[in-house]
């Protein structure tokens, strides 16, 4: 068993879990944050993507113990109670998601990209999404939404939800 304390979405959370528990299972099953998805469990599909210490990673390829003391951002941490993130707003407006399963992973990869490159080109967006598989949409509207969100974020637009 390992005991880990992780700062998840701004809140320090502690758990004691079997050592072989991945960060993905810790988030989903112990912390009840089911936004990150299990698609393949071997780091190919990216549905489990979360942001650890500012970098997007496959949470299915990280042991819970390796996340001890780190900062983790999941999809649940992107929106606040009264405000959706511009990416979430853009994905909704552009109808970028269909079944939605890949969505949280894609949005977090996109957030990490825009945080590093505020004005990404289409090749840069494609490269950033290279680890997120989508079987429904063909990515076209995702790229559109990411460009739109990047523009909004550079113009510092604040959207209120609902």
């Amino acid at each position, binding site marked *: 068993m390992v005991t880990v304390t992780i700062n998840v979405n701004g809140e320090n959370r502690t758990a004691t879990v079997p050592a072989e528990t991945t960060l993905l299972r810790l988030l989903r099953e112990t912390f009840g944050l089911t936004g990150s998805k299990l698609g393949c469990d071997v780091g190919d599909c990216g549905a489990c993507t979360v942001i650890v210490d500012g970098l997007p990673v*496959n949470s299915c390829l990280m042991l819970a113990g390796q996340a001890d003391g780190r900062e983790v951002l999941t999809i649940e941490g992107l929106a606040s109670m009264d405000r959706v993130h511009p990416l979430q707003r853009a994905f909704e407006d552009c109808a970028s998601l269909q079944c939605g399963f890949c969505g949280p992973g894609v949005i977090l990869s996109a957030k*990490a990209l825009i945080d590093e490159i505020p004005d990404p080109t289409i090749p840069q967006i494609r490269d950033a999404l*290279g*680890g*997120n598989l989508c079987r429904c949409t063909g990515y076209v509207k995702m790229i559109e939404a990411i460009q739109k969100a990047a523009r909004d974020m550079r113009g510092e637009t604040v959207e209120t939800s609902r």
Partner: protein
Amino acid sequence: MRAFEMYSAKDSRDAVALLAKHSITSKVRVIAGGTDLLADLKFSAHSPNVVVDISRAQELKSITETDEGLRIGALVTHSRIMRSPVIQKMFPALVDAAHTIGAVQTRNLGTLGGNLVTAVPSMDSGPTLMALEAEVSIEGPDGRRQLPLSEFFLGPRKTVLKVDEILAEIIIPRRNIGKPTHFLKFGLRKGQALALVNAAASFWVDWEKHTFVAPRIGLGAVAPKVIRAPQAEAFLEGRKITPDVMAEAGLVAANDAKPISDFRASAGYRKNLVAVLTKRALEGAYALAKTRR
């Protein structure tokens, strides 16, 4: 995944001590970035009892230039290699190679050391380092030992590492600092692809005679381990740099390669790829040499 115990090492010495202690009684595996290990363990019958986590060993995460050469810590991730100003300037080929590995998420976790230790013949980091005559520094209970990368690999998924040793650093010798190098990977798609063939070429230019000086070629996925292309290198040494010579060197390199046929490609197709990629890698290195002249 099956159950195992995990011990987190504070530094490399601690890691070695943990390996030495637990490998007596248990089956032990090392986890760094986890991108190879965990993918392997998820659906595998052979699972370890103990996993030693070395990912916190800070002293294995630096990139420094010393008298000996460029020292890259084994725990440097592929994305850090891509971002390193030193490596961008000196060895853009290493940046290119890192960029072809997996995707953003795997590059943020996966380490250079891990890529070498996993030792699949199609590894993307090996050929460039082979062409640069890199050495590896291994840490064990008795301290460090150093050997050429070409002696590190024994075969598919086999290296000289003993159960109580870890790969600590990769050193590119001083004499090769700034040597123009180019790397190319051929996969069946642009992202998250396994290499069908990898090729790296590295050489100095004698600008007076316009000839190849110390040409080195590294090839991946065409033998049980990453190899050099000795016949091609011998062919190029001292020869005039022309497109025809580069093309012919590619054909010679195809003879150095011993690829197999599998469901991804036939041996003949792979040999063809070696010829083309070697030629293009030579062209790329030459283009880089011209910019640095």
